[in-house]
């Protein structure tokens, strides 16, 4: 058993899983409103959409941050520079998060897409992120060995989140706000890079977990791993403009982004594929639940890679842009890749922390939730692609006629969204119960006595 220096990481993970559970619930309500616009008029779609998006994005950050705090303190032989600052970070996240949710419920908006809350609430997010960054770098600078690639990825993710989050608020300056082309381009430049920065946090976690399960640190020190890092970094900075092919900017910005986008995701798929082939059956069985989710992430990387490549070709982007295919891409990556990787990280931690409660590393409840979630996600993904094609290829006619023509796909999307939510909930219920067990004062006392 490891030296348990700090449990803040586990608290972040538990909060993240609760955010995911709630986020999916609001997503399902939003799905019903898409199909039946008069459903739950008391909680308009203008509220359910930001509730859904913010909670699910919170899960990605909380899951990544929780893993980083936990791994640094318990697996990297590095004592956190300040456990107190990590705890402050946690509480600032909770208080700010609750304030943002309250604003959404009350219909108090004022920001831009994805950050719809009043802009003033971004200040505590900035401050807590600085606190996180200082804590992270002060901790990893204590390492005397050359850094494995996940330290670089986490560090880059932290720095570039700060840069891109700042950039996403440039609209507050009249120079940007008064020029619609500039404002919308800079907004999507920041969002593209911001997604790249959280991918750095998540993919760093993926490589960390993969190296620990295989008990082979080379996974995190190979040329391929560093190749992934540089490619991801390159994409983070320059690959955003495929979102804005149809905004009238200077053409070379779009062409450049097209070339950059073609390289995306490829090496991650290669690394995870190679990693799986090196595992022994002992390692797979020992970390059965963690392995299962990493395997799913691997498959979803390839599916999303194909879609990302297709929609990044400007000629095809003409059809897919502004359609549900973009949503399929967003959902496929946030659920299929990011969520699967972070759940793998959660189950790796559970296996390490509670070896007596999770004897074999496998669980029937997790297996059930895993299959329901992944099959549902496949249907969900396909229905969004079909709806997007229906919209993109719709020739003339009104918006209502177009919506009517894709209604069967939207129905499929809503039904699979409901089963996807239940599948994930089954998994989360199991994971949260075990994390609670680990965090309960009684269990912590027992563990302390035992080890």
């Amino acid at each position, binding site marked *: 058993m490891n030296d348990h220096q700090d449990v803040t990481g586990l608290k972040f993970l538990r909060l993240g899983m609760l955010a995911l559970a709630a986020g999916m619930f609001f997503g399902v309500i939003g799905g019903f409103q898409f199909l039946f616009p008069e459903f739950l008029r008391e909680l308009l779609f*203008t509220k359910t*959409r930001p509730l859904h998006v913010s909670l699910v994005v919170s899960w990605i950050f909380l899951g990544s941050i929780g893993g980083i705090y936990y791994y640094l303190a318990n697996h990297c032989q590095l004592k956190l520079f300040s456990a107190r600052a990590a705890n402050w970070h946690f509480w600032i996240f909770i208080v700010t998060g609750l304030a943002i949710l309250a604003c959404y419920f009350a219909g108090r908006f004022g920001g831009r897409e994805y950050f719809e809350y009043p802009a003033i609430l971004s200040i505590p997010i900035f401050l807590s992120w600085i606190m996180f960054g200082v804590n992270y770098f002060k901790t990893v600078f204590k390492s005397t060995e050359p850094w494995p690639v996940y330290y670089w990825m986490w560090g880059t993710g932290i720095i570039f989140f700060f840069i891109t989050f700042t950039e996403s608020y440039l609209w507050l300056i009249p120079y940007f706000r008064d*020029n619609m*082309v500039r404002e919308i*381009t800079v907004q999507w430049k920041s969002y593209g890079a911001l997604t790249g920065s959280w991918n750095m946090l998540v993919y760093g976690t993926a490589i960390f977990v993969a190296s620990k399960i295989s008990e082979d640190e080379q996974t995190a020190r190979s040329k391929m791993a560093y190749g992934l890092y540089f490619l991801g970094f*390159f994409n983070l900075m320059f690959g955003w403009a495929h979102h804005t092919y149809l905004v009238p900017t200077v053409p070379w910005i779009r062409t450049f982004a097209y070339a950059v986008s073609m390289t995306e995701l490829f090496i991650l798929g290669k690394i995870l594929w190679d990693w799986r082939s090196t595992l022994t059956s002992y390692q797979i069985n020992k970390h059965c639940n963690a392995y299962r989710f990493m395997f799913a992430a691997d498959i979803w990387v390839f599916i999303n890679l194909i879609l990302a490549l297709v929609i990044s070709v400007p000629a095809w982007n003409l059809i897919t842009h*502004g359609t549900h295919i973009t949503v399929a891409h967003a959902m496929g990556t946030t659920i299929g890749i990011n969520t699967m990787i972070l759940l793998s990280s959660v189950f790796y931690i559970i296996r390490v922390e509670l070896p007596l409660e999770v004897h074999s590393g496998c669980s029937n409840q997790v297996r059930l939730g895993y299959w329901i979630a992944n099959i549902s996600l496949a249907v969900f993904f396909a229905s969004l692609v079909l709806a997007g094609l229906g919209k993109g290829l719709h020739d003339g006619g009104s918006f209502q006629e177009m919506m009517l023509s894709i209604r069967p796909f939207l129905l499929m999307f809503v039904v699979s969204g409901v089963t996807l939510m239940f599948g994930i909930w089954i998994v989360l219920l199991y994971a949260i119960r075990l994390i609670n067990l680990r965090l309960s004062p009684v269990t912590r006392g027992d563990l302390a006595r035992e080890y």
Partner: protein
Amino acid sequence: MTLCLAFIPYSAYVYTRGTEAPHMTPMGDEARAGQTLFQKHNCTACHQFYGLGGYMGPDLTNVISNKGSPYARAFLMNGTQRMPNFNLDETELDEMVAFLEFVDTTGRYPANEYQINWYGTVVENDE
């Protein structure tokens, strides 16, 4: 380090010459107030500009030149089965329409006339 150094002038270019829009009408105070209203009611949850935003409602980039200001005003005033009535007063309606009129001058979406190069890029004919 080289990547980071390249990122700075690249970003500066995007912030300046890369996004100059000389064809665009300057944004007036009324349109600016409409932009604030657009954010206040979180219209982007359902609507898009240049295909960016939510998909519950139609793209609004060129709603003015496609359908006309009175059409947009009628929707804003009454709502629809899909869109709630936000109970905007006369001034707010004017501001919102002024904002949509401003957006309409920024460009065309989707592009009407374009050419596709053999390597997959698209060039709009007015570029």
